[in-house]
């Protein structure tokens, strides 16, 4: 559970870093599962080219990572911020490379969702740590940022949730004033979907576990925002999964049948499954 001050910090700045949210043993388990999956995917060769890879981690081959989505270490954070009326949407592992332009994950300010990130390597401003613009999850700042001319390098287009003024003479990623979220393995970084964020620098194999949660919509405006976000994220994840695994005949379904079967009859998971089915995730 979060303290009252941490909750205020999240709602004010749009993000929160929880130091040592996971312990060394838990990080070790995540690393083993990550390495196994990556090695199998790359056929035993080390990943040395600039390729972003991302895969769902809700299957039996990554049991510890899969369980993280429902572990008290994570759900306690989400419950503190959203109450109990929320849905766990995904638990993905990614091997990141290159830089990511400034973007929010949601441009509709009625959207109530968050990501919980756990990086498996130490990261700072020079090595690909997440950069965030504090307070940019709310207006006026959220929309004003679109008027700042930015020099956006070529990218896959998947992060273009909100259009910015793109100009070769604009500000580079590192020139936009931001907080650099330096982290160590075990730290949990929680951020609002609407927060502007980016990254710069780092290796071609920055390892990250990301979990997504969405608060149940309470108003028609929130419902519209959720549906927009669902559509966008479905497209993005399908695209990335296909890009990373399609040629290798790996299963690309986000939700493994075992997870959907919910053999343990977990009522919370069943509620999430029902909602995901209603939203046509599977």
């Amino acid at each position, binding site marked *: 559970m979060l303290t009252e*001050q*941490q909750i*205020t*910090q999240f709602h004010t*700045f749009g993000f929160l870093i929880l130091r040592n949210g996971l312990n060394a043993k838990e990080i070790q388990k995540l690393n083993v599962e990550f390495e196994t999956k990556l090695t199998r995917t790359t056929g035993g060769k080390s990943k040395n080219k600039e390729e972003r890879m991302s895969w769902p981690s809700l299957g039996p081959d990554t049991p510890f990572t899969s369980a993280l989505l429902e572990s008290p270490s994570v759900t306690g954070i989400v419950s503190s911020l959203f109450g109990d009326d929320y849905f766990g949407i995904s638990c993905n592992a990614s091997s990141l490379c290159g830089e990511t332009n400034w973007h929010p994950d949601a441009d509709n300010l009625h959207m109530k969702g968050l990501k919980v990130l756990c990086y498996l390597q130490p990261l700072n401003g020079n090595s690909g740590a997440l950069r965030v613009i504090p307070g940019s999850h709310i207006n*006026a700042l959220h929309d*004003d*940022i679109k008027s*700042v001319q930015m020099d956006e390098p070529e990218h896959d287009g998947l992060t273009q949730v909100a259009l910015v003024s793109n100009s070769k003479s604009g500000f580079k990623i590192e020139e936009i004033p931001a*907080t650099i979220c330096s982290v160590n393995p075990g730290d949990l970084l929680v951020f609002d979907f609407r927060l502007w964020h980016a990254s710069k620098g780092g290796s071609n194999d920055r390892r990250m576990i990301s979990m997504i949660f969405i608060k149940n919509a309470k108003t028609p405006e929130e419902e519209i925002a959720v549906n927009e976000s669902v559509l966008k994220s479905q497209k993005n994840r399908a695209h990335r999964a296909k890009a990373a695994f399609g040629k290798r005949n790996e299963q690309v379904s986000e939700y493994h049948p075992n997870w959907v079967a919910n053999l343990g009859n977990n009522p919370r998971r069943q509620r999430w499954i029902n909602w995901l089915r209603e939203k046509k995730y599977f």
Partner: protein
Amino acid sequence: MVEKGQLAHFETFGFLVLRQVFSPEEMKDIIGAADEMWETALTTNKKSVSFVGGEKDPGATSFRYIVERQPRLTKLAEDSRIYDVLKGLLGSGFIWAGSEGQRGRVSTSWHNDRPGKNQNKYTRIKVHFYIEPTTKTTGALRVIPGSHRSPFHESLEPLMNHHIENNDSINSDKNEIDRVHLLPFGEEGADIPCFAFESNPGDVIFFHQNLFHAVYGGLGEGRRYIAMKFAAQPTTDEHIQFIKAHTEYVFHPHEDFLNSNSPRIRGMVENLEALGAKVLK
């Protein structure tokens, strides 16, 4: 001249940084002029100096009118590299709102310079020239981008509790209620999310005085900067009341500025006494 992108940056984030506006040779002259003024002030004109560091930093001084009193520094106020930028950010008819030279101050907790309802609707800008290189942990100005605008601005006002109580280090004996009061986000001031304006001599920052800013970790006696303050042309009674509330001295400009041969300098002050008279009514 301010480019469209720079204006958008200022309006969005509440500040604008220009790198290496002044050459090393120019900075040498600026530093020399400032040092002369400081030494004179500390030895012969102590009334012009405020000791601003309290018990924690007794040597920290703030020297008022440093730019007005030293012609070599006055030139900064009319230099096109500063003046034209201000014209772009504040519009024509902007006014002079004072100057100061500070040195030796180690840290300043989170605050904005012009607290109060609707104060952020009236743009006032402070221009800082740092005399030594600064980094985040050695005296750089930290700002919270976008915090000059509502409602983000208001959501940060609890940070002012710490500043008002002039207590930069939280006493561990204080009870939990005090900690919540002084640390509204659960973080020490040094850990509040921000952008640090790391600078070298010659760099200049223009910032909206409603922007939340702070300094943590200084350079001891070596940390020095010169600041000039400006405000948009006051056009309403509310603007005049805002000036009166925070900086009534603006209405009584320094005589060297009133008698200046420079049209730019005179233009920034010549109507202020009349506005001051209006305030006194």
